[in-house]
């Protein structure tokens, strides 16, 4: 059955993967954002996390996929932009189902600001009967976000390696869209939180090694001094290639993949990291 799916944040990296997967599955996508995505040709409705949304924003939609997130706000006002903005979106009166694109950084007990804000929106989504999908560390040829940042380090002859034994759940970018499309076909049966990642976590050392396209010497560093340096730089408004908050996510990843039984129930397939490789 073809659904009309509003995708908030369709012009971003994750939103783009989501949109492509949904359209490949035969759904019609309405973009909710400040500007049309590069694809063009779709209906676009104005939406910004900073503004009060129009009460008719979600009219005619079967599903809202909320993938909008202001990463720049993490260091400034993450709550007022991302959490309050998301709650305003969720409070737009509409009978459509809600799927929130969250992150494996969001888990009970996390100390990472990014994870906390995602967790706060997850709570609001759950209260309204929606589903949150926690994406693992997204990798693949066009991966942005954390893997994109790490890839830049991998081009250096000498790069820092922090918490190499921390284990991360990994998600190939090509698996995201089809998995989400499959989740939507389940209708309103699936509530709560579902992890989108292969169930076997991967040591961070293996992740960074697979990113190297030429010999890089990784220098193992204790994370606390690096964190302190990054925090210090942020306090004096220096632009750094890596946020201190992101470092927390690398050092203290989630240990449990939530909603794993749903994978089998819906036939969600996530390729193992060692078979796919980052460049796959």
């Amino acid at each position, binding site marked *: 059955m073809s659904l009309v799916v509003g995708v908030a944040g369709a012009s971003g990296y994750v939103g783009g993967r989501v949109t492509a997967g949904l359209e490949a599955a035969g759904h019609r996508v309405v973009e909710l954002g400040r500007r049309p995505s590069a694809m063009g040709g779709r209906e676009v409705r104005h939406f910004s996390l900073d503004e009060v949304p129009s009460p008719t924003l979600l009219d005619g939609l079967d599903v809202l996929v909320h993938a909008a997130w202001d990463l720049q706000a993490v260091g400034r006002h993450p*709550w007022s932009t991302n*959490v309050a903005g998301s709650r305003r979106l969720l409070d737009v009166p509409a009978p459509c189902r809600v799927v929130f694109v969250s992150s494996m950084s969001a888990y009970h007990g996390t100390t990472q600001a990014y994870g906390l804000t995602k967790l706060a929106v997850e*709570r609001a989504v759950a*209260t309204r009967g929606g589903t949150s999908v926690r994406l693992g560390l997204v990798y693949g040829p066009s991966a942005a976000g954390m893997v994109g940042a790490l890839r830049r380090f991998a081009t250096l002859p000498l790069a820092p390696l922090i918490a190499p034994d921390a284990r991360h759940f990994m998600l190939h970018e090509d698996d995201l869209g089809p998995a989400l499309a499959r989740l939507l076909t389940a209708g309103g049966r699936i509530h709560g939180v579902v992890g989108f990642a292969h169930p076997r976590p991967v040591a961070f050392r293996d992740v960074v090694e697979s990113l190297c396209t030429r010999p890089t010497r990784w220098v193992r560093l204790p994370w606390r001094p690096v964190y302190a340096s990054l925090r210090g730089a942020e306090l004096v408004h220096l632009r750094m290639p890596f946020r201190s908050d992101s470092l927390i996510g690398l050092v203290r990843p989630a240990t449990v993949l939530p909603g794993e039984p749903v994978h089998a129930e819906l036939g969600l397939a996530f390729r193992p990291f060692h078979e796919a490789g980052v460049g796959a």
Partner: protein
Amino acid sequence: MSVIDNIVIGAGPAAAAVVSALVEDRRQSVTVLDVGTRLERWRQELLDEARIQPVALWPTSTRRALSEQPKSVGAVLPEKRVYGSDFPFRDEGQLAGVEAEGGANPNLVSSAFGGFSNVWGAQVMPFTRPTIDRWPVSYADMTAAYRDILRLIPFAGVDDDLAELFPLLVAPAPLPRLAPRTETILRRYERSRHRIRPLGITVGAARLAFDASRCTRCGLCMTGCPDGLIFSASHLLDSLIAHRSVRYQSRSLVLEVTEDATGASVRWKDLATGRLHERSADRVFVAAGGIGSTRLLATLKSLEGKSLKLQEALQFVLPALSIRSAGDPRQQAAFTLNQFNVALQLDEDGRDLPFIHFYPYNAAMLEAVPRVLRVRSLDPALASLMARLTVGLGYLPSWASPTVQLRIGARRHDGELPEVTVRRDDFGDLPMLKATVSALRRVAPWLDLWPMPGVRLGAAGKSYHFGGTLPMAEASDPRELVADRLGRPRGIRRVHFVDGAVLPDIPATTFTLTVMANARRIAVEAMKREIEAAA
């Protein structure tokens, strides 16, 4: 369709909610049977006279008469007074045969018009979704009912972090200006949220059922608002009783509810004459409060000699001090209801959620200080203490609270209700309480809110957040004593229990809004089913 005859037993929040639904259908006729104790006439006249002028101009004698502080009644925590009166707790026969053992609160059933909502804290939040998800009622159904109730009552609050777990559902009116202590704590929370939230703690402003727009911040909320701005079920019932389809009959103590093939019957004592009366109806809604309704359940079902588990959210008092002074609060105009809340999420899905309502200064705190310390020479020290004191009134969910037993006895005479004995044997370890205090200690440096040692625990029945003796459950539930989603015990068609007695469990969050929403939902669904059956 002919007129449908309904009897509603009680005049508290659940009863008001049922009546609010019934009056929306012209085919429903409603008789409310209630003991109906009200504020003494002389106090009412004094209040009517006094409220003409601002509280600051009241003569001392008037102020003393209308703002008496809570009284200790041997139930660990003191009992509130409203306009100086104990009328919500007065025994007009409804407490005969109620035994409170082991220090339990003896005043478990109200005789008042409006019930205990005459003295409640006015906090209104829905139950969390993970709580309701275990009920045989959908969250969507409850949400619709919450909205209906919030549109019937005054509602003030703020859209803040607590809305993640407790959606506002309707737009609230703004709160009056908060006390300096509250403003400081909310500001500090904003600033240190990223440190506080990982510990599972969420802080937010109060949400209250009161007409905030007319609040003059006279500081008398806890002893009875001079302008009657704090919602009581009596306000809603007063407006509904004016409806031509509603007949209110006070001085009526219901003793028995029965049902046979032809309909439901109610037997009651006229407290003015002592005579017994009986009447049949198409439907009876029992809303006599968690324990009052359970006694009537015992007349409908054979429960003599049985011991039921009364689910109660344990209440505790947690005083806290701040290092920084917020100024002498005795000189500050403020409303003195709950001002901010702390929710502690202990599990991933948000069901294990102890909840604390915090109160900055009110005059009762000053009264609680030993008289010897209230001398003029110690006033600067007292001012310094009051400038730093905040009192938390917390709750644990019933599943983490000590078990309270309700033993059902016999009916000694025809004109009496079955005897009941309430008892809680032992508090046990209370690990959730320890976790709560520990988490608050950890965030104390950021909030500047330091829990003091010596948490005081409420006696059994003192929280007034109790019920669950006839929990709503699925048809497949193996337990003997359960109700369907319409509050009807198994095998009963025309008698609906609608108050706390039918809540499957009692979380630590605010109670009365859910009681009202569920009662209204039951009445709406019962009417709908009747229409469908007739069609």
